[in-house]
């Protein structure tokens, strides 16, 4: 296999793009997608290390991360729908009040 560094480097690039997306985008749904991208980058690092050390536990962790991501998306999108019904917008700059 190629050196692990290649995969970790790619993982770092994808993670940075995700982090940048969370910081600069204003659409709450796109911010959510950027979080998914960051989780995915972390998963790639897990799988690369699992292969490098021949440890199947790394792949199991990816499995658990996927489960947590699915749960997070279900709750997060329900929250976004509720916010949209209250504010008629999912622009995060509009979400500056605690109530209403």
């Amino acid at each position: 296999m190629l050196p692990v560094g290649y995969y970790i480097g790619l993982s770092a690039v994808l993670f940075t793009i995700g982090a940048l997306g969370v910081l600069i985008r204003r659409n709450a749904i796109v911010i959510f997608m950027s979080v998914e991208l960051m989780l995915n980058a972390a998963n790639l690092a897990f799988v690369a290390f699992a292969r490098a050390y021949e440890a199947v536990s790394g792949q199991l962790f990816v499995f658990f991360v996927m489960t947590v991501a699915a749960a997070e998306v279900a709750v997060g999108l329900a929250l976004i729908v509720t916010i949209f019904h209250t504010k008629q917008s999912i622009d995060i700059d509009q979400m500056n009040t605690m109530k209403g």
Partner: protein
Amino acid sequence: MTSQLILFFTLALVAVAAALGMLFSRNAVYAALFLIVNFGAVAVFYLWLNAPFIALAQVTVYGGAIMVLFLFVIMLLGAEQTGRTAAIWWLQPAAIFLSLVLLVEAIYIVVTQQGTLQAVETVSPTFGSPVDIGETLFRQYVLPFEVTSILLLVAMIGAIVLSRGRAQR
């Protein structure tokens, strides 16, 4: 080795280009479609890294279930387009600067620690197979697996409660 390098960089280019496409597309539907391309490219990396089960879980769970949910919500809300200016003017330059710092730091660490990462050259043919995954999951990680089921149940109840609407509450 050379063919592996070409394959790696082609796939990495697809993954990074799709991620950048998601970052810069103005339309949320396009962003979601770019993200699906990215998940597909990463799934191919998983296949390559002896993780066929994880690769197919990636395609079905991420590329399938999660992204369909995203697209469904985007189309339900009709919220494809959003404004382009942030409320704080220095937010964008600051975010780009901080991300660059993070990236340079990560790449620096990877490059300098390259020697300490010794990869196993060949793994056993059953490594990462569904049998292998299943045996580890239900022997070593059976408690986390059960906790996961509770987590999914709580998420399901939470989503139902949140989207039930105001009138019935």
